[in-house]
């Protein structure tokens, strides 16, 4: 069977599975639609959270980025996993005890303020939309490359599937499809990695393999790669080029941003008990860690294979995958010196005469994971599996994000804001309509992406770090923090972070170099500073304004313990 036939078969099979699950797990109440009736088993919730979290970026782009950045890519590995420790220790159990449906719910109730709720709603919607646009784009790329159909048609098919199970099933449908999607995506990610690891190092476990020796030469893979990098004028693979403070700030912004992302937090509302919220964060991270510890191995294998295949080889003899990706425009070759050989070199490369060498090959980092199995000449079904996995990753994240948007509209904006008298049935209809509208907008953004999708993702994390994280933490750990402090903190955090990112990314991109950054911190890492400002402003303003009312302080007391004196289980249904 050809790759295309395999892809078609595997993708259709997985889609049929998702649709089947959606029909089986329809939502009949708002509680089922928003939080799956709070009846999800912690292990299932862990898998669903993992699929929810691992997006097209994690599956398709991350290993590729690491393979080009080397050590600097560690910011994504630590940043996108370390946040779960914060979630499990500082947020998830308390938010579950609080027993709300959404993040703005918590912010609005804890800070007894509609204004705070609305700030949170706007942030939640903005963060989720910037994120979802990237997912739909990922769906389009997979479809166009592997099934060779138009990106627009690919996005529409993807929209149709998400529409079906998100609108019909709400959180309940999404949760159980995400469990299936996790299984598909992790299988699709690890199988090629195991193949590669065996081929290159003879070790079946990729996590160990990339620290091992190459079978052919007997030298350690990382040493070989460092040497190749030096010869070609790139920075050492295990060394990197970013400054320590920037690495620190970016890692912190990603960690804290992860812990503040509404579509992640909301997953911890779906389990029956506080205890389950703690443990499901553990399961989630374990399932995530499987992919995240394999990714740096894939990065090293991909880099080695790529360099071995292209460096100083004749352009005319490039394999089929090379020309296929060339037609998508994601690989470009320009033969500056007209010698017919591919001169792939880094910025520090010089010829023997001391003349600087010109790089002739540009490779889009996003293709590395998708192209990897082909570069290593793995069987066709493995290549097709990667396509199905990429779709699972993109669709599962898109669905989780769309749910946040729809609950933000139907629950936070209508029920708790503009139309408090709306009936349960009316709210459910509103939730479905807003989910449907959100799918269509997301699809539109997938077909007509802004040129700056990657830039807005930095935005999403920076804003989540600078807005939600401090006010939620302080809302739990400080009884004294009041409405004025929270609102002032959020506004300062958001305004500062947004202004910094907008200036360097959109207003004056030419100035986006280390010399102009404050304290040497890039726009990707500035959320850390925004978060610190939010904390500081919130604490200072609270100190000089009236303390929160008695009943709010007793809410804080209440969420700190899983069960109070004489309390049976009524808060679970609150």
């Amino acid at each position, binding site marked *: 069977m050809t790759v295309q036939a395999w892809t078609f078969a595997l993708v259709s099979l997985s889609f049929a599975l998702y649709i089947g699950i959606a029909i089986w797990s329809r939502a009949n109440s708002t509680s089922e639609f928003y939080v799956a009736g709070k009846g999800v088993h912690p292990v299932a919730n862990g898998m669903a959270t993992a699929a929810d979290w691992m997006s097209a970026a994690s599956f398709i782009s991350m290993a590729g980025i690491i393979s080009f950045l080397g050590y600097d890519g560690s910011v994504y590995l630590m940043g996108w*996993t370390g946040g779960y420790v914060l979630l499990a220790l500082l947020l998830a159990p308390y938010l579950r005890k609080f027993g709300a449906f959404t993040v703005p719910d918590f912010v609005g109730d804890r800070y007894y303020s509609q204004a705070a709720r609305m700030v949170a709603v706007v942030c939640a919607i903005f963060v989720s939309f910037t994120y979802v646009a990237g997912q739909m784009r990922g769906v389009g790329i997979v479809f166009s490359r592997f099934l060779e159909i138009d990106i627009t048609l690919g996005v529409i098919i993807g929209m149709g599937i998400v529409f079906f199970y998100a609108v019909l099933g709400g959180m309940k449908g999404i949760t159980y499809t995400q469990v299936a999607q996790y299984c598909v995506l992790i299988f699709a990610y690890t199988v090629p990695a195991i193949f590669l690891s065996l081929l290159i190092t003879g070790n079946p476990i990729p996590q160990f393999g990339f620290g091992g020796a190459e079978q052919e030469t007997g030298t350690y893979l*990382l040493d070989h790669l460092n040497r190749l990098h030096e010869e070609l004028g790139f920075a050492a693979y295990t060394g990197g080029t970013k400054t320590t403070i920037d690495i620190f700030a970016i890692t912190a912004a990603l960690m804290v941003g992860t812990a503040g992302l509404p579509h992640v937090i909301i997953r911890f509302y779906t389990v029956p008990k506080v205890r389950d919220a703690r443990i499901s964060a553990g399961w989630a991270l374990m399932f995530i860690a499987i992919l995240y510890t394999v990714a740096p191995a894939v990065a090293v294998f991909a880099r080695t294979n790529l360099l071995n295949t292209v460096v100083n080889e004749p352009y005319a003899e490039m394999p089929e995958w090379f020309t296929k990706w060339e037609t998508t425009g994601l690989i470009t070759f320009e033969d500056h010196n007209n010698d017919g050989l591919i001169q792939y070199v880094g910025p520090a490369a010089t010829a023997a005469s001391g003349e600087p060498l010109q790089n002739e090959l540009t490779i889009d980092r996003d293709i590395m994971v998708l192209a990897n199995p082909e570069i290593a000449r793995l069987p066709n079904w493995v290549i097709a599996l990667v396509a199905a996995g990429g779709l699972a990753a993109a669709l599962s994240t898109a669905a989780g994000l769309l749910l946040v948007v729809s609950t933000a509209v139907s629950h936070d904006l209508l029920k708790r804001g503009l139309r408090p008298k709306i009936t349960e049935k009316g709210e459910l209809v509103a939730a479905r309509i807003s989910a449907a509208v959100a799918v269509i907008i997301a699809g539109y953004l997938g077909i007509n992406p802004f040129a700056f999708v990657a830039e807005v993702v930095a935005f999403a994390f920076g804003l989540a770090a600078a807005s939600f994280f401090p006010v939620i933490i302080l809302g739990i750990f400080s009884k004294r923090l009041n409405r004025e402090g929270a609102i002032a903190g959020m506004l300062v955090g958001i305004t500062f972070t947004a202004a910094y990112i907008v200036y360097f990314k959109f207003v004056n991109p030419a100035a986006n170099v280390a010399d102009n950054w404050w304290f040497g911190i890039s726009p990707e890492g500035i959320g850390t500073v925004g978060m610190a400002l939010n904390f500081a402003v919130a604490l200072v303003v609270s100190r000089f304004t009236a303390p929160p009312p008695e009943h709010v302080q007793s809410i804080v007391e209440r969420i*700190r313990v899983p069960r109070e004196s004489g309390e049976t289980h009524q808060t679970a249904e609150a």
Partner: protein
Amino acid sequence: MSHPDYSSDSNLVREDQTRSEYWRRNLQYVGILLSIWFAVSYGAGILFVDTLNEITVPGTGFPLGFWFAQQGSIYVFVVLIFVYVFLMNRLDRAFKVDEIEEVDE
């Protein structure tokens, strides 16, 4: 350690004390675990990465700092959460604030 029986005012005062003791212990656990969290990622993986890179993980090609940044910190993160879950479940039971199992479970 005695547990309150919630029947009189003096017991309510005692309940307050047990509750703040529970919270203090919780913060202690969180403090210790987050120090480890910080040490393996920001410490070993970022601030001291160059020093640690001079050591190679025995039997492999991994420079130690690089290994912490791309592998080790993630393994430790997973362990930290499960340790916290274990400690807190034990604490919940000791202070009798653990959630009651529902009949249908």
